[in-house]
């Protein structure tokens, strides 16, 4: 019997190879985080070290410097076709998370940059490293999920993905999103990183009693309390504790909101 990680790995490799066979003009989104770096490693495994499509980094210009350094080093070592996509207009125009609201910033610097890149290179499918156990609507994702021109997604009416038979035709949809890591949990990712000895951005490891659980732009990320400064320690930490999903700051906000709502409803 294949062990758990081998099963996850084989399933993902199968999906990656399917996507390439069915759609040919594809790209992989690399956020330089632990999930997409795992996805990148799986792509290297799938194609025996010769990843035959571009690896795209959506650069908002607000990323941590450690992220840029990691990207530049490993894209060279692994011989990747690196594509850096930036919404130059918006950045030049001064868009940042404190200028407008966070949603607008993400919208322009991330989503629009991706839209522009897809339109320019005419990618038919994009590989992403999202997992089902991340919050909320992610739970409803399919392995092969269509997005229309407006990046809209009809999650209520999705056809079933029965027995590894994935969507392989497009009609008017702009591109297909492929999610080879859907069935992996956060702990699975770390255990795989541990087993394969994958390089990981330093930010994930504790310094001064804190580390980042997820990384993105320097402006909008926050740390959690932790002393785990190696992969092995992170795995142990995840196994034994159920760290609160959100930081203390988010909880304070929720409490304040609830007090106000309960007051308006006449409870307090």
């Amino acid at each position, binding site marked *: 019997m294949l062990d758990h990680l081998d099963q996850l790995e084989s399933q993902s490799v199968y999906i990656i190879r399917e996507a390439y066979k069915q759609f040919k003009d594809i790209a992989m989104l690399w956020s330089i985080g632990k999930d997409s770096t795992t996805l990148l490693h799986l792509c290297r495994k799938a194609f025996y070290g010769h990843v035959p499509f571009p690896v795209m980094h959506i650069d908002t210009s607000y990323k941590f410097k450690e992220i840029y350094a990691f990207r530049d080093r490993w894209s060279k070592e692994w011989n990747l076709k690196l594509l850096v996509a930036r919404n130059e207009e918006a950045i030049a125009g001064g868009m940042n998370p404190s200028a407008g609201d966070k949603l607008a910033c993400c919208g322009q610097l991330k989503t629009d940059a991706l839209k522009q890149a897809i339109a320019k290179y005419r990618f038919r499918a994009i590989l992403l490293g999202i997992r089902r156990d991340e919050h909320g609507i992610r739970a409803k994702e399919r392995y092969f999920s269509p997005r229309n021109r407006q990046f809209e997604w009809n999650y209520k009416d999705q056809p079933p993905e029965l027995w590894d038979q994935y969507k392989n035709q497009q009609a008017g949809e702009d591109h297909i999103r492929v999610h080879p890591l859907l069935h992996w949990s956060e702990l699975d990712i770390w255990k795989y990183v541990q087993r394969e000895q994958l390089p990981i951005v330093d930010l994930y490891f504790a310094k001064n009693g804190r580390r980042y659980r997820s990384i993105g732009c320097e402006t909008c990320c926050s740390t959690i309390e932790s002393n785990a400064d190696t992969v092995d320690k992170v795995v142990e930490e995840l196994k034994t504790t159920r760290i609160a999903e*959100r930081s203390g700051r*988010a*909880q304070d906000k*929720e*409490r304040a*909101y*609830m*007090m106000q*709502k*309960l007051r*308006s*409803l*006449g*409870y*307090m």
Partner: protein
Amino acid sequence: MIVVLAIDALELALVEAFQPVHLMQKFHGRTDISEFSLPRTMVLWSSFMTGANKEKVVLADGDKEMWNYRFDPEETLFSAFRDPVVIDLPGFSYDLAQHEEERRLLKAFFEAGDDGKKEEVRKAYNDHAFRHHREIKKKFQDAVAGDHDFVLGYFSIADVIGHLNFGNRMLMRMIYRDLDEIAASVKVPKIILSDHGMQAIGIFGDHSGYGFWSSGTADLGTPRITDFRRIIEGMQKG
């Protein structure tokens, strides 16, 4: 006998997630409470039992006083029945002392200084709610076993527990299972409805802007909460 299970804060989304078949009955859906400025428990149940929008009336003396408001049986749908039993319904037979203590504990939770004290108060708050739920269950089951033509049981457990624990899905799942069993035990025609639903704000639960209904005999569409008086009176005639 016609039975109504008035389940405060029963949330359609959770019903669809947990699939409690006896709460769902043959037909179920959402109610329209958009005519009200806020989904207030007292206002909604008052409007339910009288068949009219009672927001202004109930709030006239301010929203701290509203919990004490009581309607005359003559103004309500219960007057159509010979021997109705109405258990703990806000605005009619509400157990004032019980629910005032709830609100006191709720306030104490938010005012508690450290996390340790908060958990102590949460435990006291939850225990208090579960004890009341056990009492209500017994009262309800006794009434249903009796010879009345109408029984309404008001179950506040989902709302009370939900305010401080809605994010604990495990706990909510078990509560919905218990409510499902209560529904399963009623073998006569019944209407199940809630005043509003609930949505998670972290661990907490806020009122959502629509309620839940279910029926074993008719598809009611998207009724307003004020429509139920007519619907229940219709069931009696039919």
